[in-house]
């Protein structure tokens, strides 16, 4: 480990130490509570600021304080760096920093590492007082070497103790310094990032962490025999870097929404943590309701009496909100519902990614409940789509559901800084007298659209009801009126659909195989397609952002490919499994919808392993499909 031959001061003078790469994947794994995520998020932000493409994703244990030195305790983060834009978490890691020898096994189970992965491990366990710990460490190191990892033992705690009394608290910043040296990050930027991270803490805490950052940086400089340079492209535009949940939060305020009504649920809640920090300065409030049902009820009450409000939830919360979503559709109350999807069914995998709520949002309510469903596919779209959703909700007088997921929610990526437009912010509530002949639902027969009276408008008095109602808002059990009202609510989707353009194919417009995805999988799918095309495969991909109604022209696009297949993170039967036949096979959720709407025999490639889908696994599937 110790580099004894090179005693030169600057890495610039060390051409044999430094290696230039197009990209690298780094992981930090620790026991829960050791701050690996904070170190990794900071590292990602610093790299983005330097102009690198970055994607980070957290490794989150299920419990707050699981027993230390167990696989269950594995907590951490993956940071993928590139010279170009990075759109997904990638395949196996190239470099790992492990705070002990046990936690990496949680990631080894996920096949997160490969032969040749650089493995930087805390060495103190080899000198532990407990014999069992010492032998566990020795065995693990032997195993790591047998797996082909390049192991470096790093005296993390020992070094930290030279600078700080409690090494457990600051080890993560020492590791951040270590990584900053290995990847030649700008130390000034790193210091700024540490100040930002600890901005709510005392100066003492900030100083201590800055000292550890520099100590880690210096230690790597003197003791490691490798460095990597990932050339950055100086950004032409001003960039911001954040995770998908923060982007949703900023989108909420930029959309003019003033009331966010929520109940805590993983992995959606961090959206509202961020929002609660600053929404009051921008004019608005986060209401923490007593339960998921009350959260949406409050949002609907607030929307009914004013501007569109938002509620933020995840799978189990969405299930509880079902009845109110039906009411919002029936009574035509504008509303934005953000669902940061997690693994299901039931409480499922709270911290893991899945795209399993698509059919639930579309068909979860009794009765016919047409609504608009959007799925952002990048962090930037998380921001933009809230603004879009609020506009659609008000123009079409309908709930709009935004399907994000844990991968987007915790993934951090830089994107061009949005230029906030005054017209995004909603206009003041109309309180002028109501002129629509007393009709609160004066449906336009062509589009189903109608204007909405808001309390305070004289002459607009009506009683909103979830019962079948006429244009006048009167309760009616007249069969013709219910048929017509249902048609009018459905017509709004068709009218909205007319505003959409056909989606753009990634790759050639015809070929042997077309992959169709939605939501957070876009980066991985497109990367796999690009790699396959370099190998000569005639494969393209299509990514859908609008799921209800869907973008037009899909059947025409599908017709130009030999085979069409969805790539999704939800369950589908493997056609080779026992008892599964082409007739009884249960398809992935988008595949169901596309098969039904296009009558094309669409296949699917999906899993529910709770992990972001890897480009390599998609590439492998493409090669199998095309016999490459």
């Amino acid at each position, binding site marked *: 480990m110790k580099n004894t031959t090179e005693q030169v001061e600057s890495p610039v003078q060390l051409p044999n130490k430094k290696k230039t790469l197009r990209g690298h994947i780094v992981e930090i794994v620790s026991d829960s509570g050791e701050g690996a995520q904070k170190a990794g998020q900071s590292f990602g932000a610093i790299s983005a600021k330097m102009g690198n493409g970055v994607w980070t994703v957290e490794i989150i244990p299920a419990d707050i304080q699981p027993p230390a030195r167990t696989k269950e305790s594995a907590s951490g983060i993956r940071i993928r760096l590139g010279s170009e834009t990075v759109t997904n978490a990638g395949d196996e890691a190239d470099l790992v920093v492990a705070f002990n020898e046990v936690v990496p096994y949680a990631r080894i189970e996920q096949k997160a590492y490969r032969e040749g992965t650089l493995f930087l491990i805390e060495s103190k366990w080899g000198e532990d007082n407990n014999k069992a710990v010492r032998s566990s460490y020795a065995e693990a190191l032997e195993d790591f070497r047998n797996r082909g990892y390049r192991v470096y033992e790093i005296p993390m705690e020992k070094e930290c103790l030279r600078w700080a009394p409690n090494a457990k608290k600051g080890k993560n910043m020492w590791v951040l310094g270590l990584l900053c040296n290995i990847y030649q990050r700008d130390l000034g930027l790193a210091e700024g990032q540490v100040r930002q991270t600890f901005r709510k803490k005392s100066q003492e805490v900030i100083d201590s962490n800055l000292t550890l950052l520099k100590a880690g940086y210096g230690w790597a400089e003197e003791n490691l025999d490798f460095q990597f340079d990932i050339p950055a492209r100086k950004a032409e535009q001003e960039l911001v870097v954040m995770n998908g949940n923060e982007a949703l939060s900023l989108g909420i305020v930029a959309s003019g929404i003033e009331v966010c009504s929520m109940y805590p649920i993983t992995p959606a809640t961090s959206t509202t943590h961020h929002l609660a920090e600053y929404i009051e300065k921008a004019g608005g409030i986060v209401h923490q309701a007593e339960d998921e049902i009350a959260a949406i009820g409050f949002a609907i009450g607030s929307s009914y009496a004013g501007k569109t409000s938002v509620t933020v939830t995840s799978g189990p919360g969405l299930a509880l909100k079902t009845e109110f979503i039906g009411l919002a559709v029936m009574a035509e109350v504008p509303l934005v519902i953000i669902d940061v999807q997690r693994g299901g069914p039931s409480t499922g995998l709270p911290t893991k990614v899945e795209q399993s709520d698509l059919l639930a949002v579309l068909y979860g309510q009794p009765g016919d409940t047409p609504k608009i469903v959007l799925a952002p596919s990048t962090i930037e779209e998380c921001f933009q789509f809230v603004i879009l959703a609020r506009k659609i909700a008000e123009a079409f007088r309908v709930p709009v559901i935004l399907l994000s997921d844990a991968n987007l929610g915790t993934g951090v990526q830089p994107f061009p800084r949005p230029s906030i437009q005054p017209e995004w912010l909603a206009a003041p509530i109309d309180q002028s007298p109501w002129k629509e002949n007393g009709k609160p639902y004066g449906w336009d027969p062509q589009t189903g659209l109608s204007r909405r009276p808001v309390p*305070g408008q004289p002459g607009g*008095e009506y009683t909103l009801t979830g019962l079948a109602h006429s244009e006048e808002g009167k309760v009616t059990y007249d069969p013709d009126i219910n048929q017509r009202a249902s048609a009018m609510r459905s017509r709004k989707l068709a009218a909205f659909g007319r505003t959409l353009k056909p989606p753009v194919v990634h790759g050639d417009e015809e070929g042997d195989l077309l992959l169709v995805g939605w939501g957070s999988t876009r980066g991985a799918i497109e990367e796999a397609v690009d790699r396959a095309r370099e190998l000569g495969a005639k494969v393209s991909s299509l990514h859908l952002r609008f799921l209800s109604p869907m973008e037009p022209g899909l059947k025409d696009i599908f017709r130009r490919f030999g085979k069409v297949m969805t790539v999704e993170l939800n369950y589908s039967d493997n056609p080779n499994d026992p008892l599964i036949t082409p007739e009884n096979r249960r398809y992935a959720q988008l595949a169901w919808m596309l098969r039904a709407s296009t009558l094309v025999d669409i296949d699917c490639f999906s899993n529910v392993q709770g992990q972001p889908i890897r480009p390599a696994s998609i590439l492998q599937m493409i090669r199998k499909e095309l016999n490459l």
Partner: protein
Amino acid sequence: MFGLNTECILDLDTTRQYFTLDDYKKGTARWCPGCGDHSVLSAVQKLCREEQLPPEKTVFVSGIGCSSRFPHYMDTYGFHGLHGRAFPVACGVKFRRPDLHVFVVTGDGDCCSIGAGAWLHAIRYNMNMTVLLFDNNIYGMTKKQTSPTSRMGTISNTHPHGSVLPPVNPIQTTLGVANASFVAQTADWVRGHLYATIKAGYEHKGFSFIRILVRCTHFMNELANEMISNKEHLIMLSHEQGINPDEATLKMFARQEAHDPTDIHRARQLAESEEVHLGLFYQDKNAPKYDQYGAHNLGFGVDQRMAAINAELDRFAV
């Protein structure tokens, strides 16, 4: 008066006429003849006229059940929503629009059974709204099932041999929740008292919880007759800070008892006693109000909002 709402001075409209009872009436109430709900409707319409509440500034929020049809009979804004969910909706309305007069109309099933969770929290939020709990001790709309407030032994379609649990006591429950600020009880057949109680609730700047004993003459006729005929059974709580109906109404009560509505311990004892007390059990004018928590943060100007968003974006800038 004259339709002026001082909370929203921009809406000042001196040409507006005086609102009459007819301005608040809509359609024909579909409750059974003899149902106690009719007299509550009349009392509320009278209150609206007496207070000259602008119909466009008044919202009645209800859940599901016989009583929850109430908003359909008021020519104001109304929200006839989901079973048990009137409170969250009403809180959202009031939170976003502190200038609106908000009333909640709910029943014993709606409030004390399916909506019990939201009820407890609405008490705690203490937002400025008037809550009318129509308690007829039975499920009427779904045709006579046991309600959470049905007396033990009540014969119903779900308990043909008599209900087996003691009932929920809504006054006792409300008095047990932190931040309760106005807790009163009245009855549909004591009209002067009913009106005076609703008016006192309306005037209270907080969550005014009024349990109204309502007769269901269709399914619970025996109980209804018993309640009306047994004058000894009702005790009126009297206090200068309490509910003070007109002289004629006072004469209807054979029994009166002095009760200071700031004394929550005595209020709880009264709520738990075997006898039925009408009047103001408890009032705390200074309890924290959730609507004050949010109101000042709404309706910012465009410049202020854009500045705040851009300042936040700066934090994420590369």
